[in-house]
């Protein structure tokens, strides 16, 4: 068992400055301030820390992309956490806000930013209140604000609450949201590192990414890289949910076999059920099946398996569920969250939902599966941001991996709609490795 970010996580009062300091907190910040910026940047690069927000880009490299000029620079912490299945940042902010604040201060120092913001999703009011209290404490104690720790560095920190939009997790949409606009992604380039918030160079990192920073400074490159595996250093807080017995957040070494997380930690599906498929990195990751349970849980292994680690959120779907239901949920979610700025995403998500609904109503033919798969292909890679891909990739993977089930469903629903004889469901479900389960009727599925 590893506990870096989750050390003492359930200790009463860890969210206060006093307990955090007592547990060794705020020691990395002065240590970092005693280093030069470049030394801190080098440490971050060499630690191999990759972003925990989705894209998995090297945090140190991204921070070093910011121009070294003396223009106003910004650090923005992405705490929008709205992807289905993800709830790790919530835990980190609620239970140990100072860990994040310390990470932000070090990150801002390294990037040369004088202003930092935490963009937290509006629904996390409770966590935002905790963060604001912690920020006030940090100001009071001189860890934030004017001339932190009596150095010449000024770093302000403001908690900014969103108002309900998943797209604001996308980094450039987040910037627009923070500037008080509709959260629509911006064209890249220019990348935020050059032109971000208020047109200034901006470093954007996920909550968990920044929470790692004090530990990297504390442990040093050598100490930190003891954790994880080649290419995926450190630990990962994994949110496991869906059909598992012990849903929750688990901090694991990157590279831990997936089975150990899903079964060992989260207890696996309920008694008598099997894993039918799972999202390894939130609802935007292409699905994996029971066959993939032995893959090590790290960035590269997930990518090699055709999916991604993403935000590190595992959603398990057991064999009592129909893939169509999940596909429809996913598609409706992305249709609802598409900002509408670019054509393929706006129209493609809408069209996909309509096709899936038609399948559900029994008005589709197997040819529609072809069209649906084709539509996904025309979305992938052609959008302004990757929200469109985030629907198209899992939906595409579901069609690919569960084509038989979709086809069976089409036949069955058509027969049902026509009032003819309904084929036996169990005979039609053919998923490698998964036991066919009773097939819930989709007729009364809710929107």
């Amino acid at each position, binding site marked *: 068992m590893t506990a870096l970010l989750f050390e003492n996580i359930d200790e009463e009062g860890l969210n206060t400055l006093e307990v955090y300091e007592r547990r060794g907190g705020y020691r990395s910040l002065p240590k970092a301030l005693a280093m030069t910026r470049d030394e801190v940047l080098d440490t971050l690069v060499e630690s191999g820390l990759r972003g925990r927000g989705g894209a998995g880009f090297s945090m140190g490299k991204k921070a070093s992309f910011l121009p070294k000029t003396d223009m106003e620079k910004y650090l923005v912490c992405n705490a929008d956490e709205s992807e289905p299945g993800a709830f790790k940042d919530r835990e980190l902010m609620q239970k140990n806000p100072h860990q994040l604040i310390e990470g932000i201060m070090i990150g801002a120092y390294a990037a040369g930013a004088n202003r930092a913001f935490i963009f937290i999703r509006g629904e996390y009011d409770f966590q935002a209140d905790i963060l604001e209290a912690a920020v006030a404490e940090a100001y009071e104690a001189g860890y934030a604000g004017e001339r932190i720790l009596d150095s010449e560095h000024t770093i302000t920190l403001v908690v900014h609450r969103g108002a309900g939009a998943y797209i604001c997790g996308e980094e450039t949409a987040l910037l627009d949201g923070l500037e008080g606009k509709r959260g629509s992604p911006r064209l890249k380039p220019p990348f935020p590192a050059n032109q971000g918030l208020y047109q200034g160079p901006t470093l954007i990192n996920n909550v968990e990414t920044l929470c790692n920073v004090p530990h990297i400074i504390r442990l040093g490159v050598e100490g930190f890289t003891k954790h994880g595996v080649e290419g995926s250093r450190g630990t990962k807080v994994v949110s496991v949910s869906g059909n598992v017995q012990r849903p929750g957040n688990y901090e694991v070494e990157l590279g831990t076999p997936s089975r150990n997380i899903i079964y060992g930690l989260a207890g696996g599906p309920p008694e008598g059920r099997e894993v039918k498929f799972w999202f390894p990195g939130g609802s935007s990751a292409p699905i994996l099946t029971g066959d993939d349970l032995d893959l090590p849980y790290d960035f590269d292994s997930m990518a090699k398996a055709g999916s991604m680690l993403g935000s590190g959120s595992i959603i398990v779907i057991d064999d009592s569920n129909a893939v169509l239901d999940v596909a429809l949920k996913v598609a409706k979610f992305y249709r609802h969250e598409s900002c509408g700025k670019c054509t*393929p995403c706006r129209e493609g*998500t809408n069209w996909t939902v309509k096709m899936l609904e038609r399948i559900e109503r029994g008005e589709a033919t197997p040819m529609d599966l072809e069209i649906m798969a084709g539509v996904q292909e025309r979305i992938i890679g052609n959008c302004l941001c990757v929200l469109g891909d985030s629907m198209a990739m899992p939906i595409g993977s579901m069609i690919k991996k569960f084509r038989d089930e979709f086809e069976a469903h089409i036949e069955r629903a058509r027969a049902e709609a026509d009032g003819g004889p309904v084929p036996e469901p169990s005979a039609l479900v053919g998923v490698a490795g998964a036991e066919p389960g009773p097939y819930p009727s989709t007729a009364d599925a809710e929107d």
Partner: protein
Amino acid sequence: MITLTIDGREIQAPENAMLVDGAKYGDVEIPYFCYEPKLGAPVGACRMCLVEVEGIPKLQTACSTGVKDGMVVHTQTARVRDAQEGVVEFLLINHPLDCPVCDKGGECPLQDITFGWGAGTSRFIEPKRHFVKPLELSPLIAIDRERCIVCYRCVRFSQEISEDYQLVLLERGANSFVGTFDGHPYVAPFSGNIIELCPVGALTSRAYRFRARPWEVEGGGSICTLCPAQCNVEFTVRDERVLRVLARDHEDVDDGWLCDKGRFAYQAIHVDERIVEPMVREGGELRAVGWDRALETAASALAGAAGKAAGLAGGETTNEEGFLLGRLLREGLRSPHLDSRAGTPLPLALRQALAAPALAATVPDLEFAHAVLVLDCEPVDDAPILDLRLRKGVRRNGMRLAIATGRPSTLDSNAEHSVRIAPGAGGALLAALDAALGSGGDLGALAAAAGLAVDEVRTLATLLSEAGEDVVILWGERLTDGPGGAHAARALLNVARRLGLHGPQGAGLLGIPAGANGRGLAEVGVLPDAGPGLQAVETAGRPAAGIAAGLADGELSTLYLLHADPLRTHPDRTLWERALEQATVIAHESTMTETVRRYATVVFPAESYAEKEGTVTHPDGRLQRLRPAIGNPGQVRSEWRVLAELAERIGHGLGVLTGEMATGQVVEAVPFYARLTLEDIGGRGVRWQERVAASAMPEGAPGPFDLEPLPAAPAANGALRLGTFRSIWAAKEVEISPSLKFLAARQRAELSPTDAERLGVEHGEPVEVVHDGASVHAIAAVRANLPAGTVFLEEATATEPVNILTDGEQRLVQVRRP
């Protein structure tokens, strides 16, 4: 130029072009919808322009990818074709199939791109969504939401170009739609531009809807003479009728935009109110008579008025018309009484100094200057298109904007520093500024005379002197048309010298005249004291106010009004009423103005700007050419021809047989226009300052500048200072164009909250503004940012004219509830 390869062919393209534009250099067309460089940085929304760039794994948007030397681009590979077909397919999912009844059909980018890059079939078999359509977006614009492809062009215009921020996208995702707040109409000075920007038929002109199909119309390029901005326009003509006005992109003039007056007031050309026959007053009534009778009546009146005739030329008068009027009066009738301005005349030497080529700023200078001072003018009202230029300068180029006006400006929020001066105190402000810049005058007293604190003037001075060398002062005629006009002009010249505006290319002065062709008319000699070329005349005549007085007391007898309407535009309405009552009035007009209806003895029908031939001079010195787009209606004849005939009939032929000959005479008479031809002017115009002949401009002299503070603006003690302004909508064309009517200026009294409270007046209530027995009825408009102590009324309204209260001097008025 750099070299890149597109589809296997090497092409040369300019260095900082985007791929979509660069590709055109190799005759490669990359389709796009949302890209429009006029709207600012690309947004990459429509995804139509995806291409493959070697070395980059993902397809790239050609609208936002700059060309690079050695770049290898593919626009025809299977991958690209598939992406393009995909985008067309997506866009057509919900686009209705109503091209046959769509105004855009035939000139529709979506139609063209579907034809060129679409697959020809759709796999979408769900029902298309349908909505009620078309809906009003404003009295001018209809919106068809089914057709919208959410390209963001219209909302970007509203948000980033005109910055009125009234038009936005509402909802999100597939539900996104273009709309306004809570059902308010999108009414703003530049709203019509979105019609031209929309790449589909979603936004259409309610005035143009279903009037014509693209293949039935012709386009005629000309100039809009409804205001001094003189935007370049293209008239859409069908069967000798102007059906639409489009922008004819000229980056040195209008940047490709039009205001709604310019876009919709063409309707005034074809209204029933238009005067199309010559008329003569008989038994108190104007009666249509043939040209011969009308000319004869006018000629004999003029012939009998030698030495006692006078002329006023309105702003839309062309250089040729103004010049010929001058010849008719000065040479034919030995009457030097001639004016094109309404205010107190400026000494000629000052006029010349202000017009010095070295001091002349251009329209693009407004955008690229380090700093611009907007002085005593409101660009959106006085020369609307310049408002957009200034916004662009601030937004894109970091131009630093300062404002010094009496009334709050719509540009205040873009300005780094705004000061509110007392009405008529522009000269005082300049004197104070001159002192702050180091003249040694008494800054405290001078600032007080302008109604300002010393610090406000200092900040302004610092901004202007430290911004950089390119500083432009954009000033309005209001600055110099009052009794303190000469003082203000000298102060302006002083400040310009102190800031070093003579030297740098991008620095200088840009004056907005009150009349559309105010600059041209002055330069061709429609001034009491100057002939063509701003040269002194032997005997100076009377200025406008003097003409009124002369007519009223019988020293003058006959008045020639060339597109002029003094009851509307000139101060001291009471005097003008008396003057017109006494005089024989010959009016050259296109509509039944009050002056014509009540006082004209002879009426000549005037051409509209779409019918005219000739030249006008832009405030920055650009001569521009008017070309007839349609024939003259009814019996309308060209003004130059009428003037020439009249001159003939009084025995002083002008030797003008064609419009071009008139231009020839102007060019010959104005030394700094020398040898210009209509061909030279062409479709883009020529700034005379950029030609060799510019050196023939007489060198003016500012004369001694007295830094003594002017008498402070009168203390209000219970009364209010009267400020006036002329709104963009105060124009006869607006009043008679069916679709613009609703905008026509109505008299309102703008009050500060403090004054309103003191007077017990509520917002929206009727009030009376009184001076010396005369009164104007208005609706009270309480505005928070208005300086206390002043009430503002609109000039040139159709009813409740403010010039009944004014005679050019500063006024104190009483405001009360009737």
